[in-house]
């Protein structure tokens, strides 16, 4: 009997990973942003010697600590899920993917774990300078850890610096720097960390505004807003730059993701960027000839510019990517999905032939099979794809998430500009409407942050590693019921812990900075 992977196992494994990643990403961005803000505040204390800044920094450290604990908890699960739920993936690319994870552990996690203890418990026990260094090293460690995991994630979007070894049946690293310094990795790191800084800026400004609305801890709140708003403004302006870089990399390396982000079915030259739009729910396939939009407002030629740095460039749509036949940047004719699938099947068969030939000690056949494998390896993952339509990621989710992220990103720039100006004119305290807006921006910044990851990860589907390994071939061989059980276990556990975290956070905020230490 020919066995087949149960598709529900793939779906539940993806659901569990998505659940863990979403929960983890609720906590990480605040760690990244707040970590810098509190370090800036402690630096001011160190420079000025004013107790006010010490109290201010200590209050935000309290918030940091509550948030950090649950971020660590969810991160642990995420790391091990690569093995527990994606075992084939772990072998197939472990040689490349494992290294950043190990470096993350040795270089970043220990730095974070060591100095966070000094940051929390070292007040009065170590010198002011050592304490300040510990605060910076804590956030330095957190940021370094983000670097390495994002290098690993970027590699999944754009696999580089490796060669496939048919003897070990895996990809092996051949160029560490191609992995660590790939343009996708650099953009991803900067964009993700800076987005975390925005979260930090919005949360600090929002909570401070709550104090202003309540007319409590006014001096503390205004000082925190000054730091939070300027920091947030700088971060959000830089995020525009890294976002542009990220979009360009997506266009170059993952054109299907870009097409899904824009719901662009038919490619065109001088393509416009959809500013806002409503998708047509009647459209169910790439080739059903149904109009994709009920309504849209486009910025003319801008998609071509962002994708190719050329206002008149051609940008392929979903249908073109499936059907092929258009001219690629290097002047070649693009293959259709079906042709890629055929090449993928050739590569997989060549691997089987190679191994058999090696077993039979037939070196000539092995060399022939190796040539076929090498010639077609770029399409290896396509060999597992049953239907070309499976290559289209969920368009609606990707399209709307992208817009949510970008529109909210624009809103935060505006918000920080207004907040920073009024803060420096010392008139922020009287603008209650703005204080309400800042407060309600807290949930919005989390939505924007999550939406960014939805674009990155949902848009990559069906691939675990772009073009090389689809999720269907990456999964562990488990009973679907086992994964369902752990999914609901984690859902219940993380939700309870999130409610507890919010409860503690709210109580701590209500108590305020003066009595923030219990």
């Amino acid at each position, binding site marked *: 009997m*020919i066995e087949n*992977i149960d598709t529900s196992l793939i779906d539940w494994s993806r659901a569990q990973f998505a659940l863990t990643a979403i929960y983890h990403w609720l906590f990480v961005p605040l760690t990244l942003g707040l970590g810098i803000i509190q370090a800036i505040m402690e630096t001011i204390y160190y420079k000025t010697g004013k107790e006010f800044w010490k109290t201010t920094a200590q209050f935000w450290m309290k918030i940091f*600590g*509550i948030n950090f*604990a*649950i971020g660590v908890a969810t991160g*642990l699960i995420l790391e*091990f899920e*690569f*093995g*527990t739920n*994606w075992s*084939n*993936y*772990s*072998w197939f690319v472990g*040689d490349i*993917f*494992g*290294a950043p*994870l*190990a470096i*993350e*552990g*040795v270089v970043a996690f*220990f*730095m*974070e*774990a060591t100095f966070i203890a*000094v940051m929390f*418990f*070292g*007040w*009065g*026990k170590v010198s002011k300078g*050592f304490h300040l260094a510990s605060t910076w090293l804590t956030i330095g460690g957190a940021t370094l850890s983000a670097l390495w995991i994002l290098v690993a994630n970027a590699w999944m979007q754009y696999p580089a610096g490796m060669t496939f070894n048919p003897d*070990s*049946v895996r990809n*092996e690293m051949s160029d560490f720097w191609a992995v660590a310094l790939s343009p996708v990795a650099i953009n991803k790191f900067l964009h993700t960390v800076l987005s975390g800084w925005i979260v930090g800026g919005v949360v600090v400004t929002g909570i401070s505004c709550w104090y202003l609305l309540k007319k409590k801890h006014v001096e503390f709140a205004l000082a925190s807003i000054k730091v939070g708003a300027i920091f947030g403004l700088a971060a959000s302006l830089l995020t525009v730059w890294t976002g542009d870089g990220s979009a360009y990399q997506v266009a170059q390396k993952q054109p299907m993701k870009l097409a899904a982000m824009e719901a662009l079915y038919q490619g065109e030259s001088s393509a416009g960027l959809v500013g806002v739009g409503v998708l047509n729910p009647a459209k169910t396939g790439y080739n059903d000839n149904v109009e994709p939009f009920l309504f849209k407002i486009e910025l003319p030629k801008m998609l071509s510019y962002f994708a190719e740095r050329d206002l008149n460039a051609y940008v392929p749509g979903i249908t073109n990517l499936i059907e092929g036949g258009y001219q690629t940047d290097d002047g070649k004719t693009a293959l259709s999905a079906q042709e890629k699938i055929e090449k993928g099947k050739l590569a*997989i068969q060549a691997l*089987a032939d190679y*191994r058999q030939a090696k077993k039979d000690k037939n070196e000539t056949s092995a060399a022939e099979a190796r040539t076929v494998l090498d010639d077609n390896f770029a399409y290896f993952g396509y060999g*597992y794809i049953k239907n070309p339509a499976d290559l289209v990621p969920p368009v609606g989710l990707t399209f709307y998430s992208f817009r949510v992220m970008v529109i909210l990103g624009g809103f935060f720039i505006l918000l920080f500009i207004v907040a920073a100006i009024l803060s420096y004119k010392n008139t922020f305290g009287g603008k209650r409407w703005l204080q309400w807006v800042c407060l309600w921006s807290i949930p919005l910044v989390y939505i924007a942050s999550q939406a960014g990851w939805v674009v990155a990860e949902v848009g990559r589907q069906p691939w675990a590693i772009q073009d090389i390994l689809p999720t269907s*071939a990456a*999964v*562990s*061989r*488990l009973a679907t019921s*086992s994964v369902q059980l*752990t999914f609901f*276990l984690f859902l219940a*556990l993380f939700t*309870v812990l999130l409610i*507890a*975290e919010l*409860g*503690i956070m709210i*109580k701590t905020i209500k108590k305020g900075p003066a009595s923030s*230490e*219990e």
Partner: protein
Amino acid sequence: MDSTYILLQHYWWFLVSLLGALLVFLLFVQGGQSLLFTIGKNELQQKMLLNSTGRKWEFTFTTLVTFGGAFFASFPLFYSTSFGGAYWVWMLILICFVLQAVSYEYQAKKGNLLGKKTYQVFLIINGILAPVLIGTAVGTFYNGAEFFVEKANLTHVGMPVISSWATPFHGLEAALVPWNLMLGLAVFFLARILGLLYFINNIADEEIRQRSRKQLLVETVLFLVFFLSFLVHLLLQKGYAVDPETKNVFMQPNKYLFNLIEMPYVLVILLAGVVCVLFGIIKSFLSATWNKGIWFAGAGTVFTVLALLLCAGWNNTAYYPSNADLQSSLTIENSSSSIFTLKTMSYVSVLIPFVLAYIFYAWRALDLRKIDHEEMTQNKHLY
């Protein structure tokens, strides 16, 4: 095979073993947690105990994460086979560490939803389950697990999974092997001993110190019963040997005993470790003022576990044997990363002494002043 490659595989098995050994030492945090209500008889004492282990829990946690990362990077076939196969064992270990990660920070805070007691029970669950489960899982290094590895499966488009588990219990069956469980219990009681020695060192409270010294006796007796039973059985049992020429795995009588004889430096490390552990315990028990026991027993633990793990992977031994299919067994040779990756990561490993140095420095800076009543009543960041 390239001799550099062989050297790197041995080097990375050493590093993974060292991380494992450090992890077992750092399980003193879990041991201490499991004794929360045994040693802490009132709220203040419990607070001191929690603040004592609470300032170190992240080291244990981080070592676990790094151990996972290093294993992934250096021996990815173990990572994919064991984690994806012994699913339930690893899930249980992970869940009990999740409970720990939030419990210290949340237990004493207002608005924590579940109440202080629940988080303290979480810490006790983590304190018991983590050492028992980790010890039991490591027991499979010597007694085998139930899996198949077939790399050619990747060419089966419908079912391309390379590693599969042979039982529907996905790892839980390891607990049915008494020698695995015995190692689990030995690790558990060792963690409790280390926890007690750490309290004696770290908390300036006479009652806690006295009670900890008294408790040492019962924990030590239980530890020795389980550890010596495991060790004697290990030396007498058949082991999973690898033919260096054909790479075939076969059962060899007294394999682990021979490993110690053939690698006398490992035997020396093992004996030195056991002596250090016993010295740390006995002197702490007999002296009412000596508080350095944690360092001796801790170093001894690292030596002992390191020696046992080296025994599992070096000298042509299959470190993760399969009882379902002997030839699927994992060795440091057939499961390691490529020479390029091992070499690249070896450059990174040069940083490890530096990391250990700053951990030591920061640890010392914080522990110069011991935890006492006065600190617990100050308006500071406390658990």
